[in-house]
């Protein structure tokens, strides 16, 4: 007999807060109240537990003396329940809880329980009876996702016990894939196998395999002349857009109708991004500054903090996975991004912070959903929750981010995850950032096991998304597993036992080993040695699976035993799976049989380069007529309550933003504890007050008018947020030169022209060219190097004949060193009587602004960055902050001066009394209030320091008025009163913006 199931549930009659939260989630998502919900957990065991083991779990291990009760069996519905929804994990989907339960049994009863199979189920019991259709919606749209969960629902007496699926017993096979002749057949092969390769690329593969040299070599290796499934998959992953950045490396013919100057661009990446960094680098050299260490060719960019330490950081997107499974997509996005610093140089960087920038469709979008499309509110809620678990459970503070909305993000959301880290400058006498691999070094796989989850992630994200998402591409992360890996890596790498490290992300082992193999000139691995989650994973799947929480290490043969022993101490699984060679081949075997034998040169350089066409013609736009008689107090309140501008507190509070105890400038500050801040600032250690500031800049709406202006404004936004807290741009003769390090992340719809499929492809690529041109101009003008980045080029959702494409978007994420965090400045007004200034000239630039969006307009006058003037202003402002002249400083961005002023007041909470006569012509109050001209700040200055401040800033300082004690927001323009309302009334609207969403 024995016990097959245990149920843990809130005792009858007690309130279940989790059930209450789910009830609220249902209400928000489906617009009806499902009535009281009681949650239960059911754990299943195979083979059944002995009575002693069950008794231990029931009476000790899972026992709760207050509200929760544990009982054998899986029934135990609350007395009032009438209906249920049950959520089981599909086979192969991470089930951490079940695994931990097994650990608990092993701890108590020994290793015999290590082979016990366990599973967990979530049950939601409803007091109110609901028709099946309603339960199904709750199951699919709120508490589960059919891609990763097995969902059952019904009335109380239909409830059935969960069953544990038996593992597959199929024998692994290695198949040969005949390469057909002819374009149509090749294209079909790419489509059928989800290779995401175009015809030219398929043709290049076919050509390679018919070459006599290839054939001879394959015959010698005992392989058929056609590729194996493993080889084809390996090539597809390596050549994927995700891994190869094909558009950024393409040759582009650019026709610029605006300037009339056409150009041939030989790789956007080299022409703009690399060139900008090189230009900055030579400027830095000329100034005698050597903090720029390693750019572009590793998992994260590296800059120097001081003689002993370096800072490495990386920002990436996880859009496609987040579109189909928001929670899983976001959490694997965070954890995957964490592995970049862990896998930079010799590995083991100490993770310092996360940032997240999110772009969603409107949460109240009421258009019917397309097949396969998830509602934006659902995507928002799921992504938020994935970020919570990804950061909080890893012990990494989530310190900065942004949330944007636009109906064009309703198909694919954009989910940008960033991670900063600190590493020692040298390990075992060699620079930390140098990866070395020699012939004979061993290849170790460390961390999670491999399963069928995450197959085809790299190729999947290189395709447009449609009604059918491949189930295999979706996976759930395990922050716990990765935390063990991170702790282990920090230790083993600091001991100098690891020569190089990289993560297993897109493309799995095929990419991680394939990449490192370039350093020695070859590698061979035995796939049968790779630890599997369950039997039945095919050799090719082992090779390309993107199962999470895994790293690949290069270790000298003599050090392998020590590394393995240390891993065991940390409860981390580590396995030697092969060795590096130098004969120019990437080889994989399964039980000695060849699976892959590919020429590295072909694998990494055989991709035919794309040739693309781009064109730019400014859109024909006009400025709208703005009504004269607006009640600006009312307008401001409604804008502040909008999704775009409202308080992010309900989201931010659920992210742990201060674990490690060193977050000096947090997302929310001030006496009220709710004043939104610009850049985040973290102190690096307890010994000094040195810190790092981090900020993000993104403004896709400007791109609807001019992508150049958009890209420039986004770069400026990130820089000026850092300037606002006290950061100083690189400059000659700085007493303590501080590093700057920028990540660029481009997200575009398909830019490859096709007369039928993508008729406006050239225009979209033209926008990308404009964005890159701005990147170069601004990065060089500011002296800020690009150190790493990523592009995501297929952000289209197609279903039922409709395509939803994201607007071309670029995110700049910038980090900068702060010599003394105690000098940092926050946004909240500090004391009544302080003088309030606008810093920087305001232009009539409302194109793409929040105010025009409020009016339902786009406009034409997009904010144009004036980098030389901005640079000078930033230097002066930096001097004033260093001199202690500034009580508060807030950058002006979305919503313009009026919104920035209001946010400064909310942190107090205080009021202010300002006159805008000097800001812009008196008959245009809306320009003064809401223009989004770049490079401006709201600053408050303690009484008595006004003249020193004005002397420091020169004509850039425009006195507006003062901070007031009365808790009233008063804005005038000469005799006209524009706004005169209570601060609390405004902040109420602002605070409640997400009330109907989260």
């Amino acid at each position, binding site marked *: 007999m024995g016990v097959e199931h245990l149920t843990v549930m809130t005792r009858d009659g007690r309130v279940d807060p989790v059930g209450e939260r789910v009830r609220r989630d249902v209400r928000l998502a489906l617009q009806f109240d499902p009535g009281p919900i009681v949650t239960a957990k059911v754990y299943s065991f195979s083979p059944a537990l002995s009575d002693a083991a069950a008794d231990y779990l029931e009476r000790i291990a899972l026992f709760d003396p207050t509200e929760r009760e544990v009982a054998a069996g899986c029934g135990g519905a609350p007395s009032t329940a009438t209906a249920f929804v049950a959520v089981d994990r599909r086979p192969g989907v991470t089930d951490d809880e079940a695994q*931990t339960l097994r650990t608990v049994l092993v701890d108590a009863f020994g290793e015999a329980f290590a082979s016990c199979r366990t599973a967990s189920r979530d049950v939601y019991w409803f007091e109110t009876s609901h028709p099946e259709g309603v339960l199904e919606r709750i199951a699919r749209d709120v508490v589960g996702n059919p891609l990763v969960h097995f969902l059952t629902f019904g009335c109380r007496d239909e409830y059935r016990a969960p069953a544990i699926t038996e593992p597959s017993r199929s024998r692994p096979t290695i198949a040969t894939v005949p390469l057909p002749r002819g374009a149509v057949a090749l294209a079909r092969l790419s489509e059928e196998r989800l290779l995401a390769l175009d015809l030219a690329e398929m043709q290049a593969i076919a050509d390679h395999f018919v070459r006599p040299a290839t054939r001879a070599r394959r015959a010698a290796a005992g392989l058929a002349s056609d590729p194996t499934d493993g080889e084809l998959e390996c090539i597809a992953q390596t050549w994927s857009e995700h891994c190869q950045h094909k558009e950024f490396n393409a040759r582009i013919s650019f026709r610029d109708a605006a300037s009339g100057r056409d150009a041939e661009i030989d790789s956007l990446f080299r022409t703009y991004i690399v060139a900008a960094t090189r230009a900055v680098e030579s400027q830095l050299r000329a100034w005698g500054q050597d903090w720029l260490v390693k750019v572009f060719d590793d998992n994260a960019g590296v800059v120097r903090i001081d003689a002993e330490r370096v800072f490495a950081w990386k920002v990436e997107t996880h859009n496609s996975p987040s579109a189909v499974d928001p929670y899983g997509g976001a959490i694997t996005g965070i954890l995957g991004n964490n592995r970049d610093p862990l896998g930079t140089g010799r590995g083991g960087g100490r993770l310092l912070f996360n940032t997240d920038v999110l772009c969603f469709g409107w949460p109240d979008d009421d258009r019917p959903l397309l097949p396969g499309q998830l509602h934006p509110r659902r995507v928002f809620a799921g992504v938020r929750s994935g970020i919570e678990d990804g950061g909080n459970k*890893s012990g990494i503070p989530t310190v900065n981010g942004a949330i944007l909305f636009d109906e064009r993000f309703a198909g694919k959301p954009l989910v940008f995850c960033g991670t900063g880290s600190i590493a020692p400058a040298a390990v075992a006498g060699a620079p930390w950032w140098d990866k070395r691999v020699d012939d004979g070094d061993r290849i170790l796989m460390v961390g999670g096991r491999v399963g069928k989850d995450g197959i085809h992630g790299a190729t999947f994200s290189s395709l447009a998304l449609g009604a059918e998402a491949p189930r295999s591409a979706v996976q759930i992360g395990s922050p716990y597993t990765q935390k063990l890996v991170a702790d282990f890596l920090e230790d083993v790498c600091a001991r100098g036992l690891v020569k190089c490290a990289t993560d297993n992300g897109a493309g799995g082992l095929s990419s991680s080993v394939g990449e490192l193999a370039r350093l020695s000139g070859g590698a061979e691995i035995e796939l049968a040695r790779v630890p599997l989650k369950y039997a039945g994973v095919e050799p090719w799947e082992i090779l390309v699976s993107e199962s999470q929480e895994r790293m690949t290490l290069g270790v000298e043969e003599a050090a392998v035993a020590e590394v393995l022993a240390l891993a065991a101490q940390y409860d981390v699984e580590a396995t030697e799976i092969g060795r590096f060679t130098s004969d120019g081949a990437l080889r994989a075997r399964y039980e000695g049989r060849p699976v892959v034998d590919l020429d590295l040169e072909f694998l990494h350089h055989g991709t035919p380069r794309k040739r693309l066409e781009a064109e730019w013609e400014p859109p024909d736009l006009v400025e709208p007529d703005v009504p004269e008689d607006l009640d600006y107090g009312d307008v401001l309140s409604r804008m502040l309550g909008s999704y775009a501008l409202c308080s992010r507190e309900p989201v931010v509070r659920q992210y742990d933003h201060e*674990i490690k105890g060193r977050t000096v400038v947090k997302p929310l500050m001030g006496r009220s*504890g709710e004043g939104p801040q610009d850049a985040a600032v973290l102190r690096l250690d307890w010994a000094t007050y040195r810190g790092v500031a981090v900020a993000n800049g993104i403004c896709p709406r400007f791109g609807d008018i001019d992508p150049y202006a958009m890209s420039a404004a986004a770069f400026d936004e990130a820089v000026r947020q850092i300037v606002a807290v006290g950061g100083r741009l690189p400059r000659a003769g700085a007493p303590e030169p501080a590093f700057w390090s920028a990540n660029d992340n481009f997200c575009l719809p398909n830019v490859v022209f096709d007369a039928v499929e993508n008729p406006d492809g050239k225009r979209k690529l033209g926008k990308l060219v404009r964005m890159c041109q701005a990147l170069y101009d601004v990065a060089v003008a500011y002296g800020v190097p690009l150190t790493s980045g990523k592009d995501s080029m297929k952000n289209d959702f197609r279903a039922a004949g409709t395509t939803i494409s994201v607007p071309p978007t670029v995110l700049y994420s910038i980090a900068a060193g702060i010599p003394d965090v105690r000098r940092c400045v926050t946004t909240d007004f*500090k004391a009544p009587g302080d003088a309030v200034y606008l810093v920087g000239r305001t232009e009539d630039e409302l194109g793409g602004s929040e105010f025009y969006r409020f009016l339902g307009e786009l406009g034409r006058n997009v904010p144009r960055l004036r980098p030389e003037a901005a640079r000078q202003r930033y230097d002066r402002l930096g001097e004033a902050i260093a001199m202690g002249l500034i009580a508060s400083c807030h950058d002006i961005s979305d919503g313009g001066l009026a919104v920035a002023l209001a946010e400064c007041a909310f942190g107090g909470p205080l009021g202010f009394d300002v006159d805008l006569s000097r800001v812009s012509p008196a008959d245009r109050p809306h320009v003064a209030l809401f223009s989004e001209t770049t490079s401006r700040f709201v600053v408050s200055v303690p009484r008595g320091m006004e003249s020193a401040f004005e002397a420091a800033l020169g004509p850039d300082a425009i006195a507006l008025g003062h901070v007031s004690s009365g808790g009233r927001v008063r804005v005038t323009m000469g005799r006209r009163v524009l706004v005169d309302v209570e601060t609390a009334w405004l902040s109420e609207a602002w605070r409640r913006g997400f009330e109907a969403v989260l």
Partner: protein
Amino acid sequence: MSVVRALVLAGFGINSEEETAAAYRLAGAETHVVHLARILRGDVRVEIFDVIHIPGGFSFGDDLGAGRALANRFRTRRLPGGETLLDGLRRVAADGGMVVGICNGFQVLVQVGLLPNVGGRCEPEASLLSNASGRFEDRWVRLRANPRAPIRLWEQSDPFEAPVRHGQGRLAFRDDGVRKGIVERGLDLFSYCDAEGEATLSYPANPNGSELAVAGLCDPSGRVVGMMPHPEDHLSAFVHPDWPRRLRERGSLDAAGDGVDVFRSLVRRVAAQKELTWLKGEEEEAWNGRFSAR
């Protein structure tokens, strides 16, 4: 004179060991961060320490309930000597040392019955359940210390401030007997309080809906202490959410935050209640060798 030795536990998803170790060092204790696996293997014996601290984090991902799997490991895994780690912790306290748990560590101490332990039988008398809001929250709270508690960790009359960062911090007690025991013996070491300094059940000053507004507990001996808020996250005045205004108002800020005083009191208390001894000869060597690797 000898010095207080503190062991800060790490590993298996604990993630606040770095700042916790900094707190003990600032308080003057000789501090070592030790991975739990090394203790279970017998590399390090807990008895050679005066303070055993279980930091915050998500041990075992908080699967099965916050701190639960770690608590079970404390109860069931045998050390080489045959006893459990829980036995070891009880002996440390019995010998005059302290056992401290914050956040996840507090959850562990409550689950194994070391807190509040009104009945003295080390059995579960309370739970830390999902916050009343059903959500994880990170926010700063004000805490009042009970002057009648068996141990005083905060001597000032003003409340001390620290952040909470948890999803399961709602303290609930088994029955009225436990509640009565806590109140009568002053085991409610810290309470959440409002702007006026009064203990409160109202959100958000009481961020999770804890019964009796209790934020931290000690056992009747005062040698086992636990709390949900994180004094180790307020080691520097420059991490308080309102530090820039305070700096402006006061002209200068003490470098140390409230949290440092809490750890100083704790270390002082241990020094006073336990006869600290020098390690001798071989023992000393073993001590030094044991930690040189990390």
